[in-house]
């Protein structure tokens, strides 16, 4: 293909968008709407999984031993827990440490230490704290540990991360359904726009065929049109979402920064958009190209 053909097709495509501006705008608008929705979905899921990741470092399971379990048995339990993939770390908490943690958590003063100076009521309550790298595996890990020899009880800590994770996938399903629907409508609208363009230019297409234009030459302007519509449909939501996200992220950092032990933090704008922009452009251009090619195949006879 010659450069001037590319230029020609480009010009014709742009002209056609303008001539067909009502349809073009409807198509661009629908793509914009679906991608804005996609953008919010993307922000929510990306940030939730970011938060889940951070919360996960806090998720722990406490494992207490049978009274009088030998050091060997206790060590054995550790080895077996560590062999699991979802386990990040196993930390031993001695009775003294347990007492100290209790004191901290319950704001007890010096007289508390005085009272239990000689007798530690938690003498039999040394334990392992098991940190996970995958919240979703918590239940299966707990039932695994419960069956180990020498284990008395396993205490499941409150699981915020787990709830986040469930919420995250629910958001995912709903948004995916809506986005698929909108993308379907957008493809239909692009197809309609191209169809109209083909009808308007039916005479011209016939002349081109008679003169000996190649199939590609005839189709290229329509492809430019469709792809450009898709591209614009992706550019607009990116432009709209960028400042919005920046504000939300700033707000979260400022107002909610201390919730959930400082773990509620949004990903920086650059990181989210670095991932999202190429995906959005690909979706926009993809909708444009596919919608156009399907229509061309239906509406323009090959030679």
């Amino acid at each position, binding site marked *: 293909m*010659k450069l*001037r*053909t590319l230029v*020609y097709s480009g010009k014709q495509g742009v002209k056609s968008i303008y001539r067909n501006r009502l349809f073009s705008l409807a198509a661009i608008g629908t793509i914009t709407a679906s991608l804005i929705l996609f953008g919010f979905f993307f922000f929510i899921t990306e940030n939730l999984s970011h938060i889940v990741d951070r919360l996960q470092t806090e998720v722990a399971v406490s494992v207490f031993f049978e009274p009088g379990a030998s050091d060997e048995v206790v060590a054995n339990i550790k080895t077996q827990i560590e062999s699991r993939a979802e386990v990040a770390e196993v930390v031993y908490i001695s009775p003294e440490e347990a007492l100290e943690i209790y004191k901290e958590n319950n704001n007890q003063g010096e007289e508390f230490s005085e009272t239990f100076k000689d007798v530690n009521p938690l003498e039999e309550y040394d334990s392992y704290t098991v940190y996970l790298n995958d919240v979703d595996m918590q239940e299966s890990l707990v039932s695994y540990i419960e069956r180990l020899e020498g284990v008395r009880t396993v205490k499941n800590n409150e699981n915020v991360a787990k709830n986040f994770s469930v919420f995250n996938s629910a958001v995912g399903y709903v948004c995916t359904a809506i986005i698929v629907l909108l993308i379907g409508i957008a493809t239909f609208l692009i197809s309609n726009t191209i169809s109209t363009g083909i009808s308007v230019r039916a*005479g*011209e297409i*016939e*002349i*081109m*065929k*008679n*003169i*000996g*234009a*190649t*199939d590609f*030459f005839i189709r290229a302007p329509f492809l430019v049109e469709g792809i450009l519509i898709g591209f614009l449909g992706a550019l607009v939501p990116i432009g709209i979402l960028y400042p919005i996200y920046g504000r939300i992220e700033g707000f979260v950092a400022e107002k909610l920064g201390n919730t959930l032990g400082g773990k509620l933090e949004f990903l920086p704008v650059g990181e989210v958009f670095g991932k999202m922009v190429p995906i959005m452009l690909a979706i926009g251009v993809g909708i444009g190209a596919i919608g156009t090619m399907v229509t061309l195949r239906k509406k323009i006879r*090959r*030679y």
Partner: protein
Amino acid sequence: MSEYNDILNQFREEEPPIIELEGVSKAYQKDVDAIKDVSFSIKKGEFVFIVGKSGSGKSTLIKLLLRAISPTKGKIYVNGRELSRMHRTSIPKLRRKIGVVFQDFKLLNDRNVFENVAFAQRVIEKSAREINRNVPAVLSVVGLSDKYNSLPNELSGGEKQRVAVARALVNNPMILLADEPTGNLDPKNSWEIMTLLGEINKRGTTVIVVTHNEEIVNVMQKRVIKMENGHLVSDVRKGGYENET
């Protein structure tokens, strides 16, 4: 001179025909033949009229030659190549060898005379330099040198058809097909267009004209192929509109 002519004509006889139909039939619907078992051949440089009543299959012949449609039976050769064996991607190359003109001109109404003719060159990816050389040359051949900037709706029927002829010629085709080029024109303009087609033929282009214009056919005394109900009923070397078979 006359001995040269004979030698040249003999040479022409041996030259393969530029167009040849062998037992060609075309049925748009099953068992309804628009043309039936038509055979003829046309040599390079000939001028041929195709005449016949409405619905006799004249336009069907033109479409077959352009490979806009394919025959249901028989073979068509253009410039030595059989059309049905031609690959899809070679069809544009075939059409670049053939210029075509229709009764309804088929001009682009949003573009001026120059752009309508230049369009034919742009479509086959000619450079701006070539376009600026070829378009004025061909517009002068059809006598429209002073109308470059006119839009089609500012032209008379005869002028519109000249633009269409210029567009058909600008890519320098070997063959010019005209399907009722004077169908929408008054007698004066009809004569001008036919004379123009005759001149183009004298420059070496093979010209095939479908027409209902008896007077012109009778006066010009060219080869006449007559169609009737899809059959070729007469083919006369120098004839008039109504020939005995």
